[in-house]
């Protein structure tokens, strides 16, 4: 663009930019960062959904803090909701009712806040599925995986503390269960419970304590960790799916400005709009129906929000086991499902990147993602974990399901206990088999090309299907399969007969490595692929003269005879009784 075409506004903008640049030297920074390239794939936007729903949570939450009172001082309800008029309730519940019925836009804001909070956790979960199944957590991104895991845990903490704030019957019952879990911790349980609740449950401190954690501590940590999370994505650059020209040393995509600025900005408003529409038409947490919390009351069908539901399910499925040691009760029935189980699962998830790196002996940097099928054992482990989680989640809603589907809750508990052990194992086996089958298909595609669906009969009477070579893009994707091989067994001693000090840990790594990489379909070699390409060309030679014969009958797949033989129609088949005699 020549200088004559610059408009007045652009001139002003340019002079402003120059003014700023002369003082803070920002232009080079901007040009470097605005031109930063990001790879393109819809699944890379799942994390964005989480980020945007968190922004919505923050905005709506700020509005709620203007009216919410974190106090358990008792007041007599005198608001517009008649079925509670004159009932003694806490100030917290009173203000939550006021937000719902008296504050302008309050109910919508409460529903936006609650829905976006649920949405936040869902988006985090789905984002983590993408990261796990594509192996995006591998070097150099292990630390960011840990940051992400911590963010997920903080999201749960934010959700749970918020769930308890309205001080309605539902949230109070949730707190009661938390108290039970704290009490189940051996030795320190009782003291810990008194510490958390400031005395005997429910006490007068818990609401204001949770409020501080909910609006200050946890969101502060989340904002800080999101910053770290994104900065690491920025400096490490985003991973990319395999494709033509994509390697571990480059990033293929579009610049941030203008493509992703527009996409991300637009996507924010889409997510905001979606959450607002849901909040506007679907009711969530009708606290006025649940009533105020008093410790002597409870409602059937009391459940936590979905992301805590799996722990509730674990609690419901756990057999009733208690140890009594020297008159001291160890409540394993509470301790194992709600403290030990989540502790183990979270630990396993956090250390998984290092576990895999140890088993592969792989110290390379990975910027090209794995296709889930190409890491069958990892994919199977992930699906197994999801199935395990879903069964626990179903267990958490077992009473609602029992009533809704006319089932016996006792039957459901026993069914789910067995399912919890059997179904994840089945899911593991089935997923792995599916992955290997997909690998087999990929290998076939590389070797023989794409199946066109055209059947040819050769002069000799033999039937063949015509294959077409896969296009450049697909070939690059298919050829991206890594050659992961199990680590070899370490030698017990070296040639001089000295014992190998790392023998034991090496054997363990090799064992895990075999588990991860033993089953795979070998990628075809270059020579084999070349041979396959020649075969495809040879098929074309067979095809050409046949299609040129006008007198040969052309029969469609369904058996109907085509009126006019179409020479270039891809579905054309050339095959019937006459054909043989003509060719003879």
């Amino acid at each position, binding site marked *: 663009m020549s200088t004559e075409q610059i408009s007045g506004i652009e001139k002003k903008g340019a002079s402003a930019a120059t003014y700023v640049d002369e003082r803070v030297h920002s232009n080079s920074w901007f040009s470097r960062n605005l031109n930063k390239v990001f790879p393109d794939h819809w699944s890379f*936007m799942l994390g964005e959904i989480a980020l945007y729903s968190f922004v919505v949570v923050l905005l709506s939450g700020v509005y709620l803090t203007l009216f919410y009172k974190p106090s358990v001082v008792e007041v007599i309800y005198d608001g517009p909701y008649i079925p509670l008029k004159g009932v003694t309730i806490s100030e917290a519940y009173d203000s939550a009712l006021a937000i719902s019925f008296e504050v302008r836009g309050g109910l919508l804001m409460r529903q936006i806040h609650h829905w976006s909070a649920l949405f936040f956790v869902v988006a985090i979960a789905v984002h983590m599925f993408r990261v796990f199944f594509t192996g995006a957590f591998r070097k150099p991104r292990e630390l960011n995986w840990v940051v992400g895991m911590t963010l997920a845990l903080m999201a749960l903490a934010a959700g749970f503390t918020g769930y308890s704030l309205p001080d309605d019957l539902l949230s109070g019952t949730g707190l009661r269960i938390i108290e039970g879990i704290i009490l189940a911790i051996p030795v320190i349980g009782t003291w810990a419970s008194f510490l958390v609740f400031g005395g005997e449950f429910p006490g007068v401190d818990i609401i204001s304590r949770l409020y501080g954690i909910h609006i200050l501590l946890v969101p502060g940590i989340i904002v800080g960790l999101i910053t770290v999370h994104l900065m690491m994505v920025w400096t490490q650059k985003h991973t990319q799916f395999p494709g033509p020209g994509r390697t571990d040393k480059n990033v293929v995509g579009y610049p941030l400005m203008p493509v992703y600025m527009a996409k991300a900005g637009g996507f924010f408003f889409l997510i905001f709009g979606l959450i607002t529409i*849901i909040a506007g038409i679907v009711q969530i947490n009708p606290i006025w*129906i649940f009533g105020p919390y008093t410790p002597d009351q409870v409602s059937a069908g009391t459940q936590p929000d979905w992301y805590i539901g799996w722990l509730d399910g674990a609690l419901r499925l756990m057999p009733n086991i208690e140890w009594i040691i020297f008159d001291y009760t160890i409540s394993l029935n509470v301790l194992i499902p709600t403290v030990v189980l989540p502790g183990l699962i979270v630990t396993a998830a956090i250390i998984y990147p290092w576990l895999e790196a140890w088993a592969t002996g792989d110290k390379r940097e990975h910027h090209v993602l794995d296709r889930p099928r190409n890491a069958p054992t990892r994919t199977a482990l992930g699906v197994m974990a999801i199935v395990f989680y879903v069964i626990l989640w179903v267990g958490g809603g077992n*009473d609602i399901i029992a009533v809704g589907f006319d089932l016996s809750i006792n039957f459901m508990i026993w069914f789910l206990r067995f399912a919890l052990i059997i179904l994840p194992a089945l899911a593991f086996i089935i997923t792995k088999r599916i992955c290997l089958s997909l690998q087999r298909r990929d290998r076939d595609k590389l070797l023989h090309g794409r199946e066109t669906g055209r059947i040819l009969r050769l002069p000799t009477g033999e039937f063949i299907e015509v294959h077409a070579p896969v296009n450049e893009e697909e070939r690059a994707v298919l050829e991206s399969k890594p050659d992961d091989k199990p680590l070899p067994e370490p030698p017990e001693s070296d040639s001089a007969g000295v014992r190998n000090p790392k023998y034991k840990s090496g054997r363990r790594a090799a064992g895990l490595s075999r588990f991860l990489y033993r089953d795979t379909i070998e990628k075809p070699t270059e020579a084999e692929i070349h041979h396959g390409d020649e075969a495809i060309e040879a098929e074309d030679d067979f095809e050409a003269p046949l299609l040129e014969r006008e007198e040969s009958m052309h029969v469609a797949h369904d058996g109907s005879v085509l009126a006019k033989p179409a020479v270039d129609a891809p579905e054309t088949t050339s095959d019937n009784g006459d054909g043989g005699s003509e060719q003879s």
Partner: protein
Amino acid sequence: MKSLAKHRRHPAAVLVVIMLGLLLTGGLYAAANTATEARSVEADALLIEEGKRLFLEGCSSCHGLAGQGSDNGPSLIGVGAAAVDFQVGTGRMPLANFGAQAPSKAVEYTDEQIRAIAAFVASLAPGPSIPSAEDLDFTGVDVARGGELFRANCSQCHQAAGRGGALSNGQYAPNLMKTTPEHIWEAMLTGPQQMPVFADTTLPPQDKKEIISYIESIRASDDPGGWALGRFGPVTEGLFVWIGGMLLAVILAVWIGAKVR
């Protein structure tokens, strides 16, 4: 009249007037009373007779020819008319098949027939009776107190919104959203199936009225927040956020992320 008026200041006059008044009202009452009594006894006898016929036909195979019960059904002696009106009036009886619990289903008998069976069962031994129109008059009842009573006594099984909940071994506390006030009253009095008996001595009639009017109020109440997802709480909400929310968000992501060719 003059002679009568002459004695109006007589000391005995007051007594005589009172006596005459008493005789007149008492006599009239007695005459009227015997007439209705006779009629209702006659009608009751007919009703009980009809009820007995229906009972022998439809109920006695399980509850015994004299309502004494059998291996298949409990004794009905002393359960009162309220139990019959509830069990038969909600379609729970006659039982279609033996299960964890008798579900409410289409009612088999007409109101007349139900009243007849109830009269017969009530005639076996005294028991709770069907609530009167006065019992079911909810004008000026404190709904909010009913809410407190409901949450203290009912919500642990029937759920805070009265949508029902699971009990052990396939039994359940039913959804109250289609139950009539009369049937709720009778259920509290007679404690059908898993439900405890809330006799008038433990839960006075006024409390029952308040509870029922609270149930009526949450049944009639709108959901100001929109579609209530069955008022089941977080389970349906969680399901919705995955299916309704995340699915749409992923579709949006695919749309935004789609390459323009």
